[in-house]
């Protein structure tokens, strides 16, 4: 554990780490509990399956959950350099692995962002096509400072039908606009459930809220994900890497979000060609 009063490392004895990260993606939300971490991990696995090299930085100091959700191996440290944990070849670093959340979440915005920025810089990510940052929820100083500290290439917003009506989402959209961080779009999470009786999609809180909001702000609605117990369980047990765990309908919904995301991103930032990859065939 890192003593919160001390910086993680002083600049003088930090070895410059040679990382090459093509795109930094912020996964953000107006408030907590809407599925930001779930979407981060689903997106990471989607990109991984498409041959990209992917890392995730869990920067949610209020509720870091990615160590559990990904069941990543623990990170290791040599001097000031941190080697990320791994989960199905995805590099995982969570602020929860390094800082006591009880102390971290009372830090003032810029301090907290500093802590996260230092953590980010100390990690030997190597070469990544995507680094996904699971943002702290909300639109305060932390999110502002963090977006300036790291060069975020695009942001993806996660909402639920419940919080669509709330001001938080609009605030988040305008924050990224102010920061000049392009928004790749909105994912509406837990927006329907597929009924086990009639097999139909039931929209508990009305349909199309996300699309309406997206239209209002000129954003892309990347897709909606159902409220599905398999997703909750996958989160609890770290099973996101195992496709056989999900129904074809659910996989399709996840794939749609991923494909739309790549499509939108390509408009913002042309995707790199793959330079080196291994695709493991799933039987």
């Amino acid at each position, binding site marked *: 554990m890192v003593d919160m009063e001390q910086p993680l490392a002083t600049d003088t004895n930090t070895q410059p780490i040679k990382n090459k990260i093509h795109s930094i993606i912020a996964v953000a939300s107006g408030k907590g509990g809407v599925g930001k971490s779930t979407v981060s991990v689903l997106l990471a696995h989607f990109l991984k399956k498409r041959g990209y090299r992917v890392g995730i930085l869990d920067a949610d100091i209020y509720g870091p959950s990615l160590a559990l959700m990904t069941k990543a191996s623990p990170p290791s440290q040599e001097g000031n350099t941190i080697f990320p944990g791994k989960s199905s070849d995805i590099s995982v670093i969570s602020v929860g692995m390094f800082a006591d959340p009880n102390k971290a979440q009372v830090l003032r915005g810029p301090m907290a962002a500093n802590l996260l920025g230092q953590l980010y810089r100390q990690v030997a990510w190597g070469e990544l096509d995507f680094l996904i940052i699971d943002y702290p929820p909300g639109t305060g100083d932390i999110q502002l400072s963090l977006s300036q500290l790291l060069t975020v290439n695009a942001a993806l917003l996660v909402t639920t039908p419940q919080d669509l009506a709330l001001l938080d989402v609009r605030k988040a959209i305008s924050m990224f606009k102010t920061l000049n961080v392009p928004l790749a779009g909105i994912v509406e999470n837990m927006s329907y459930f597929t009924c086990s009786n009639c097999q139909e999609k039931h929209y508990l809180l009305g349909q199309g809220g996300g699309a309406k909001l997206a239209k209002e702000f000129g954003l892309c609605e990347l897709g909606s994900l159902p409220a599905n117990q398999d997703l909750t369980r996958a989160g609890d047990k770290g099973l996101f890497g195992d496709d056989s765990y999900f129904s074809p309908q659910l996989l399709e919904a996840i794939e749609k979000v991923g494909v739309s995301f*790549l499509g939108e991103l390509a408009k913002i930032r042309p995707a790199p060609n793959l330079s080196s990859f291994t695709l493991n065939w799933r*039987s």
Partner: protein
Amino acid sequence: MSQESLAIKEIWQKNSITLGIKWSDNQEFLYDVRTLRALCPCAGCQAQRPANELLEQVRPKTITSVGSYALKIDFNDGHNTGIYSFEFLKDLGEQQKKQG
């Protein structure tokens, strides 16, 4: 066509027998992995084509990039000597598309 060399933008497993590739010119093609095994460009297979009835069950285990010009496919029938150049795969995709 531009002079830029051919590269892969995305590669993914679509289902148990289909490989998807998005090329650097943004064209997307799907490949039946059994066809890829049947068309293995290695010298051994050039001399003697694998028997058709063996191909039905054949699947890749891993697909790995070779430099910046080709793929190497390790098949579950133990065969792994084929180097599939991007050129070859792109042509194959275009041919298949023409044939519909």
